[in-house]
Each structure stands twice: as structure tokens, then as C-alpha cells.
């Protein structure tokens, strides 16, 4: 978390309600005036906004259910299977057969869960259609990401915001860093896509975001390229 200045404390306490759209117009305007002049609070607001966008994915009916536990003997069964496989000397053969598969599994780990990312450009990847699931019912955002040598091209179409609304588009990289893709204005009656670009490879892109007016929408992005590699290997292995 960014260092909090003492004078920011009261503003900070409003950031949760702000991220969830629960401040009234006056409170919101006052807070946004502060955010305009305080990069630390702004960073905190953006970070909470990212979390707030994820809330609709969860079903509150499941919060009170304790996480299910596997059968008590599952660990032992796995250990027994592995022991038997080792004794049968299958391991060397298996390793040959699966070696490439797990190299790509590791690649998927990097691309999907994004601890580490694949280097270089990825022009071979197909374009990706991105879904924004956590938008309010009246706002729709469609976007396509295309890989290029220079980074990622973004086609975006927004519907449901006020005509003239400034939309700032950005990608998030592997470490949560924000790479700006530029801005456009939504105009009522205009059915064309906005075309933007950002200097971040699609394979390194974790999320696509758009700030429309004072609301920010974020959609996760995963790398289809790595998934396709794994599928190829699975077909080869069968």
C-alpha cells in the first residue's frame, strides 16, 4: 500500500464506498477533487476499484460455507500411486512423454496466473474477445485485443455512457503496472469501434481497463496462445 499521509485518513475511509459507487454526488465530487491532487490516494482508489470490479463474480451464498475438504486418505492414496509408479519404473518413460506438455503447462501458469510472463512479441496469437462481466446492466463494453510486434491493438465499443464521456483505456501488465492505450470519446449514435494501441505484448497483458467518466471497468485477459500449445500437446499425447 502507498504511504498514507495523516491528512488523507478521512479521505481513505471513503474510498471503499467510492469504489462501490455508494457516495452521494457531493461526497463524490469532494473526494475526486482530493484524488486529483493526491497520487497516493488515487493509486489506492484504483487498486480498490480493481477489487470492487471482482465482487460480482462471487456468490455471497457461498461465503458462509466452509471450504470443502478432500477425503482424509486422499493424500495417502496419491502417495501410494506415486510410490507404485516409481517402483514400476514408469517415471523415465512418462517424463519423455510429458516433458513438453509440462513445459507448456508451466507456460500456461505464467500466462494464466501471471506470476511470470513469456518474453517477446506474439504475433502468432489469435485476436481475443474480451468480456466485461462486472459492468452495470445499462453499460456494455465490447473489446478485441490483437497482438502485434509493437504491442497490442485494442478495438473497443462502449454503449450506455453519456454522449461525450471521455474513455481512458489501459492494459495491466504482469506486475499490475498500467500501460496507457490512449483515450476516446463516446458519441451517441456512433457505431464505430475506437482503435487504440499499447506497447505491451498481448501475452504479457493481465487485464484490460477503461475509465469512462468517473467509473473504471476492468476485465481479465488470459493468453490463448499458451492454451493452444497445451491443447496441441494433449492431442499428441493421446
Amino acid at each position, binding site marked *: 500500500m502507498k504511504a498514507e499521509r495523516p491528512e488523507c485518513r478521512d479521505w481513505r475511509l471513503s474510498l471503499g464506498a467510492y469504489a462501490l459507487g455508494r457516495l452521494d454526488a457531493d461526497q463524490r465530487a469532494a473526494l475526486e477533487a482530493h484524488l486529483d491532487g493526491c497520487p497516493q490516494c488515487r493509486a489506492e482508489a484504483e487498486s480498490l476499484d480493481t477489487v470492487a470490479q471482482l465482487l460480482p463474480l462471487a456468490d455471497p451464498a457461498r461465503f458462509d460455507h466452509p471450504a470443502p475438504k*478432500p477425503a482424509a486418505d486422499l493424500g495417502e492414496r496419491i502417495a501410494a500411486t506415486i510410490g507404485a509408479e516409481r517402483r514400476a519404473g514408469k517415471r523415465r518413460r512418462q517424463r519423455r512423454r510429458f516433458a513438453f506438455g509440462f513445459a507448456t503447462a508451466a507456460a500456461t501458469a505464467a500466462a494464466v496466473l501471471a506470476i511470470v510472463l513469456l518474453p517477446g512479441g506474439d504475433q502468432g496469437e489469435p485476436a481475443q474477445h474480451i468480456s466485461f462481466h462486472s459492468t452495470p446492466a445499462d453499460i456494455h463494453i465490447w473489446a478485441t485485443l490483437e497482438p502485434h510486434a509493437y504491442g497490442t491493438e485494442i478495438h473497443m465499443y462502449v454503449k450506455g455512457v453519456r454522449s461525450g464521456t471521455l474513455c481512458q483505456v489501459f492494459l495491466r501488465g504482469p506486475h499490475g503496472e498500467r500501460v496507457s492505450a490512449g483515450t476516446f470519446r463516446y458519441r451517441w449514435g456512433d457505431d464505430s469501434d475506437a482503435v487504440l494501441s499499447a506497447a505491451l505484448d498481448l501475452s504479457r497483458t493481465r487485464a484490460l481497463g477503461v475509465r469512462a467518466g468517473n467509473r473504471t471497468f476492468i476485465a481479465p485477459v488470459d493468453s490463448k496462445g499458451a492454451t493452444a500449445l497445451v491443447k496441441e500437446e494433449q492431442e499428441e499425447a493421446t
Partner: protein
Amino acid sequence: MQSGALTRERDVREAYAAHSGELFGFAVRSLGDRGLAEEAVQETFLRAWRAGDRFDPQIGSLRTWLFAILRNVVIDLGRARAARPGVAEGGIEPAVEPLEEALLSWQVEEAMRRIGEDHRRVLVETHYRGRPYAEVAEELGVPEGTVKSRVYYGLRALRIALEEMGYEG
């Protein structure tokens, strides 16, 4: 052998002790069936062990690697089930949402279980149930400002819990 590689049976036992709960939780969420979920977790650790010398902690955490393998196993099981329609009959509906989204949903729900009860409760009442802050404050016997600050600290706690689970939004 590099340190951290998953090449010995003891490594697998340790990895199982550390991560099987989460992996199983996500498998149940994705497959909608405890038996299949156990099968998925077993297959995940088997595949991880077979490819254990390929695991490089420099590239990513063991947890991340296991989840990536589980993700593939769940896809495979889903395909196998689709190829044998009779097997799924009468069973629980499998998850229809895309797997990435299922993982994210599960992570958010798991994060919600990990944060404090006070924080979870205000988020559920004010956000999911859409109740006014004042009404929730009265019910809890606290000032409205406290509800507001709990929403803030709750979201922060949620962010930290998600980061602990590997989410980097």
C-alpha cells in the same frame, strides 16, 4: 536436481499438505462433484510429480504451477465427461462459466471467507444486498461512519487475501 523441484515423494507430500485444500476447493467449484474433484486433485499431483524436475521456482510459485496443471486436468475431465454423456446424468450441473472466470470467482469467494467477519458482513449487507449504510449501522449498533470504514478495510483485506492467492489485479 534443483532446489524446490518436485522430484521426491516427500516433496509431493509437502506440496499436498500445503496446497491440496485450495486445489480441491477450486476443483469442486469447477466440476460440481466431490468424487471428480478428488480425481482431479490426484491427477494434478501425479502429473506434477512426473514432471517434477521441470518445475522451476524461479519462474513461478509451486502453487501457481499446481493450479495451472489442475486447470488442464479440469479441462480434460470436462472433455471426457462430454464424450460420455451418460456419466454426467443425474449428477450436479458442471460449471458452465469459463474456467478462468471460475478460478477468479472461487478466489474471490475464498478471499471473502478469509477476511474478518465484521468486514465480510458489511460487504454482504451493503454491497450484495444493496442495503443503505445507515440501516446496516443501526442493525449493528455502530455509527454509519464505522460501516463506511469497514467497507474500506474490508476491500483492502480482500485485496490482500487475493494477492496471497496469486491474484495480481
